[in-house]
């Protein structure tokens, strides 16, 4: 925020995580905002999870429901298509982002749409839909309060559930006062919310075309379900003539009754509510109630490849609740922008590189302490640490063949270490030499705070314990001799 430069949330262009994280770590306002927001959500979630004696059983059922859908994904998608089409919907398939954008723009052209209202959808951000529509002359109005803040303030999202949690009330006041022309607006959240309500009311009533995402696609009936809080979603789903829903192919669940599990775990995990204020479900087109034209765009964009490995397939269970990022000790320090993707936090660290086929965002699997809290809070039991470790191995394997790696100081060091650790006498000799050299850098408190050259890579972000005067093996030898 305060550093005028915008973060880059495109994994193709974004800098590696450690580099992107630096300006975030120096922004004390941003860190304060993120810490406050994640603390509040976590406390609410913990209280509501504790009141559910069957929480672990719900998690297991939710994971299994998603697994069943993913194992038979093709068949369930075909069933969804058949049912949705029978109820008057039009189903489109998009292999990648470009195809999805072209399909959506094609529908908007057919509708002669110059404006479109939108419910918050992460999938549309993934395919960078808004800039594409803007460039094509279609004006996009985001309607979720957080999304309005970001759109009017020309800011980037930093969380998948509360995308503006890095912005505080006085920053929101500044954005609304400037862009809505309300100079006497206060920073009371009530006043700010009322301003958003007023700003959008006419748009809801007048714009005839809407775009939404989806939380669940029901294969059994061809229905779509969306969870939300504000009612902006219901407006977009009910009032326009035409509705376009963009959904990742992994959103499908087999049966209507599967929602009895999914709806119980989603809101509790996402916002710390027993249920979010509004959940809407609709099936194709209903005469007399809601849009008369309904399109669903099913997006692959790398998902089918993630599905091929049984371990990585877990990634696609994700129901986008954000609990993993709220709990993550790394996310809580850096906020979302450091991840260089619209999917931040632990789930982003596994999802983003996989969506690019591991061609980009290779630093993200390393942006974790592997503490496991993300796995513990995940409502669909995605073993994120396990996938992080596997992706680390894949990234390392990828680099193994690279010629540049031979001269890379880090890998050079690794090879030297490999040699030293394989022979005891070499190890002892190296330890002895290191003790002499490192003594120069060791301060009185016994810690090394800064090293020159390649060593600086370590001491830039952490201190190093100075080597002890006597190594363990010599102490052990001495002790044995003494006891004899």
């Amino acid at each position, binding site marked *: 925020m305060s550093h005028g430069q915008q973060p880059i949330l495109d994994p193709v262009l974004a800098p590696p995580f450690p580099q992107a994280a630096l300006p975030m770590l120096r922004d004390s306002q941003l860190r304060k905002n993120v810490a406050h927001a994640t603390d509040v959500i976590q406390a609410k979630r913990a209280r509501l999870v504790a009141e559910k004696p069957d929480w672990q059983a719900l998690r297991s059922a939710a994971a299994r429901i998603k697994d069943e859908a993913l194992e038979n994904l093709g068949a369930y998608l075909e069933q969804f298509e058949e049912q949705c089409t029978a109820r008057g919907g039009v189903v489109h398939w998009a292999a990648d982002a470009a195809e999805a954008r072209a399909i959506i723009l094609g529908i908007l052209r057919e509708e002669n749409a110059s404006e479109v209202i939108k419910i918050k959808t992460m999938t549309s951000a993934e395919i960078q839909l808004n800039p594409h529509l803007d460039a094509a002359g279609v004006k996009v109005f985001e309607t979720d309060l957080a999304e309005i803040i970001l759109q009017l303030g020309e800011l980037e999202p930093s969380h998948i559930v*509360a995308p503006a949690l890095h912005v505080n009330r006085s920053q929101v006041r500044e954005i609304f006062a400037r862009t809505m022309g309300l100079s006497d607006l206060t920073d009371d959240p009530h006043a700010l*919310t009322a301003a958003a309500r007023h700003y959008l009311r006419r748009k809801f009533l007048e714009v005839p075309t809407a775009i939404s995402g989806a939380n669940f696609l029901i294969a059994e009936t061809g229905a779509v379900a969306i969870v939300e809080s504000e009612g902006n979603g219901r407006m977009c789903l009910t009032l326009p003539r035409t509705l376009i829903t963009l959904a990742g192919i992994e959103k499908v669940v087999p049966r209507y009754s599967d929602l009895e599990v999914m709806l119980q775990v989603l809101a509790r995990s996402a916002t710390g509510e*027993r249920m979010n204020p509004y959940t809407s479900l609709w099936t194709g087109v209903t005469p007399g109630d809601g849009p008369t034209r309904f399109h669903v765009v099913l997006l692959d964009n790398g998902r089918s490849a993630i599905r091929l490995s049984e371990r990585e397939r877990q990634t696609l269970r994700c129901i986008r609740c954000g609990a993993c990022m709220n709990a993550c000790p790394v996310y809580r320090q850096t906020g979302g922008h450091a991840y260089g993707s619209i999917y931040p936090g632990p789930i982003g660290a596994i999802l983003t590189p996989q969506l690019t086929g591991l061609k980009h965002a290779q630093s993200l699997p390393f942006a974790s302490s592997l503490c496991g809290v993300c796995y513990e809070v995940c409502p669909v039991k995605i073993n994120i640490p396990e996938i992080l470790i596997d992706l680390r191995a894949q990234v390392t394997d990828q680099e193994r063949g690279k010629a540049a790696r031979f001269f890379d100081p880090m890998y050079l060091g690794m090879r030297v270490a490999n040699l030293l650790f394989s022979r005891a006498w070499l190890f002892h000799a190296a330890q002895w030499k290191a003790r002499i050299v490192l003594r120069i850098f060791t301060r009185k408190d016994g810690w090394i705070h800064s090293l020159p050259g390649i060593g600086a890579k370590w001491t830039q972000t952490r201190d190093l314990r100075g080597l002890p005067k006597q190594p363990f093996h010599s102490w052990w030898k001495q002790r044995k001799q003494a006891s004899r």
Partner: protein
Amino acid sequence: MSAMVAARAAILKKLGAGTGVSGGAAPSELIPRDYIRRGSLDPDARVAKMIERLREYDAEVTECTPDGLAAEIAAQLARSGRKTFVVPSRLPPEWLAAGYNWKIDGDLATEEVESCDGVLTGCFCGVADSGTIVLHHSAAQGRRLISLLPDWHLCVLRASQIVETLPEYFDRCIQIPALVTWISGPSATADIEMTRIKGVHGPRFLNVIVVKEQGPGTRD
């Protein structure tokens, strides 16, 4: 168009379509369903929990007997200070108290619904565990937009419609509905510093009348 047909074929090929689901054993039996399906509260406690959970999320709740319902509706309308109300096409006529403008929906124009001060509906079900009201948008519950645009929603919930757990609601769906809205409290947001603000775009006020059974312990 042909590009899309190609995309469909390519995606389904990658997914190995047709494997598993068709023909095999019913996969739903593989889901571990040892979570709580049936509630354990007696009817009075169930109703009490529903009321408590509704209130916790800022809904206003009053109680009455079946005989007192019409009077309770009239009292709520009077207290709201509002004049014009939209209603679904098939509400009991005695609910429509005299002295107010009643707009009976069928195919009212959006602007006409928008101009109403409030809405009065029935519902399909109430889920006590989460304080949720479920609308299936039948003729007594109305089209989706009538319970969305007016700022004040008065909803009648009979004790016999209240279940304790969400799975119990799904058990009641003999036919799978085409349209559903689950409502848990009035419209809200926490997007600014996680401060919960009641009322954004949906109704800012949700009032629920819980109609208790006539005799003690009466079951539906």
